């Protein structure tokens, strides 16, 4: 574990997606420390546990058992020491409703799960290399949904 590596946490119940995610991070050659949780409950337990280092970026699936991504998002934003975590919604859904809701709840970016591994790599690269402090200040509804140029 490198000290200045980015801490990435993915909350997703789908094993295949976790695998794609892990592979993509391995291939993009950025020093990262990627951890996984399998559902919303596990996510909250992980975040609430003071032994665990808080992630720099949390990739959050919406459709999860026990506690949905949206519920987790609301809880995180309500919790003082968690509310500054960068949250990237990572979902199959591209419904306007989901995008709207998560934007309002304070997520930083919305990623529709791509159906191509190379696209996934590009996306992850994009998200990880963003200067979030700069990006957050210019956060608006139009650039919330990540579109690759």
């Amino acid at each position, binding site marked *: 574990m490198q000290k200045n590596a980015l801490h990435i946490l993915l909350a997703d119940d*789908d094993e*295949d997606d976790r695998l*794609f995610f892990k*592979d993509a991070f391995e291939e993009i050659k950025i020093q990262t420390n990627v951890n996984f949780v399998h559902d919303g409950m596990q996510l909250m337990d992980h975040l609430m546990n003071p032994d665990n280092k808080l992630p720099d970026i949390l990739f959050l699936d919406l*459709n999860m058992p026990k506690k949905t991504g949206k519920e987790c998002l609301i809880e995180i934003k309500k919790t003082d020491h968690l509310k500054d975590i960068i949250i990237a919604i990572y979902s*199959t*859904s*591209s*419904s*306007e409703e989901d995008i709207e809701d998560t934007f309002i709840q304070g997520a930083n970016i919305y990623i529709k*799960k*791509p*159906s*191509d*591994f*190379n696209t*996934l790599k590009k996306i992850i690269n994009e998200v990880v290399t963003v200067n979030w402090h700069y990006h957050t200040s210019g956060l608006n509804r139009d650039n919330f949904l990540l579109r690759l140029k």
Partner: protein
Amino acid sequence: MKWIPNFNSSNSLRVIFVIAVFILLFLSSIAYKHNQDLNESSKLVMHTYEINIQLERLMSAIKDAETGQRGYIITRNARFLTPYIYSRDKVNTSFINLKKLTADNPQQQKNLHRLFKLITQRFVSFENCLKYSDPKTYDKRKLDNHMFGGRILMENIRFKVDEMNDIEKEFLKKRLKIYDSEISLSPLFSISLFLVALSFILLAYRQISRDFERLKVFNKKLLISSGLISESENIGKFSTWQWDLDSDKIDFSDNQFQLLGLEPRSFAPNKATLIKYVHPDDKEAVAKAIDGILDKKHLPFVYYKIIRPDFEVRYFKTTGKLVTDQQGSKILLGINFDITDEHLLNIELQERNKELEKSNKELASFNHVASHDLQEPLRKIQTFISRVSDADKEVMSESGKNYITKIESSAKRMRVLIDDLLLFSRTNTTKKEFIKVNLNELLNNAESELAEIIEEKKAIISAPKLPKLSVIPYQIEQLFINLIGNSLKYSQPGLRPEISISSEKVSASDYPEILEQSVKKFHKITFSDNGMGFDPQFKETIFILFQRLHSKTDYPGTGIGLAICKKIVENHKGHITADSILGKGSVFTVFLPD
């Protein structure tokens, strides 16, 4: 109550009557007076004649006495003295009569007194004549004197009698004149008064008969309108009731009984029967509403059930109003509607609504299934295929590589289908928020969405200034994307695509067959291209879901795009048509309400 005719004439009628009656009373009193006077005057005439007769009798008695006396003096036959002896009595009788007759006239009494004196002197003279004619006491000179004196007395008596007669006649004349002047009304005046009275009565009669005619007309109208009301109550399934609060009398219209399932007028309604047939569940509410009307003077609609004698339950709606009639009594007017049919229909509608809501929910859950569960495995398939590296492919057989390619294109097509289907169902189910927006803005968005293919095909898109309309922005944007995308997709090979958009305002009345006539003005937006076009016989079918004119190997597509266009335009209560000449280009026309 405006429909009651105003018989104002009755007041003037009364005045006319009173005047006529007074005239008649006046006339009859005059006639009575006239009659009285006539009676009086005839009595007076009688009176005068009687006095005249009595005086004449008096005269004749004296003359008889004179004649008898002369006969006796000449013949000395005592028989001649008889009239003389009786004449005294006759004179006395006449005198008494005259005294009675002239009792009311002091002048005549005085005259009578003088006359009496003269007659007494005449009789004294008679006695003297008899005395001096008697042979025993015969004295020619004295006899002559007395005879002569008798002659003078006789003339005086005659004079006096004439004077008295004249006085009577004069008196009579005067009285008659007074009477005549008293009955000063000339017959002409009386007759004209009578005629006036008669004409008044005739006038009154005419007015009465006219009022009567009007009454008859209004009565007929009233009969007709009450017939119509009862007919319309039958047709409209409503009924009316009146409750006179002062006399506490309640009237039901015939249909009220019929709505309650009873024969008309089968009982006399009262306050208790108002709620007698109300369903036990609703009795309290209805009673409360009836009490409430007395305070509020108005009954808001009350909905309740009633039970007919045959136990059939009907649904009623009642409203009412407190009115004050012309006589100032308070009347509660009520209308009952039998709304059973509507109620049942409503229930059916509600059920259908529930079903619709349910199927809508199902559609929404299908949406969810499509967006998540169907996409998930597909995405995995695609991602896994993308993970088959070129190195992996190298070691594969030719057919294996071929299969991988086929799986890849099938998965891609599956994705397009799912995306389009989702888009189509979302045009139905997502909330429709209309926002006033400049269509040019939406067109620009559509163009930037299609930028890649526009660039690739070097297409020229010309658009004028489009109107600002109240639309569902993302849907109209989708409409533009689909229409322009369609033109670009089916462009002629080797020809630069040109799409020209035009817009004009038209009247709905110019397109009676396709446009909603309740909206007056529409915006007609036309998309013309120089593409390959299509056979005009398909201009209707191309808007149907999954209808395709080309094989999917030539032109990949799902057959959903134009169906989405149609749906979007319908969502805006507009209309879309297509026309084309094969090989020359197509024209899509969109009508959007102003």
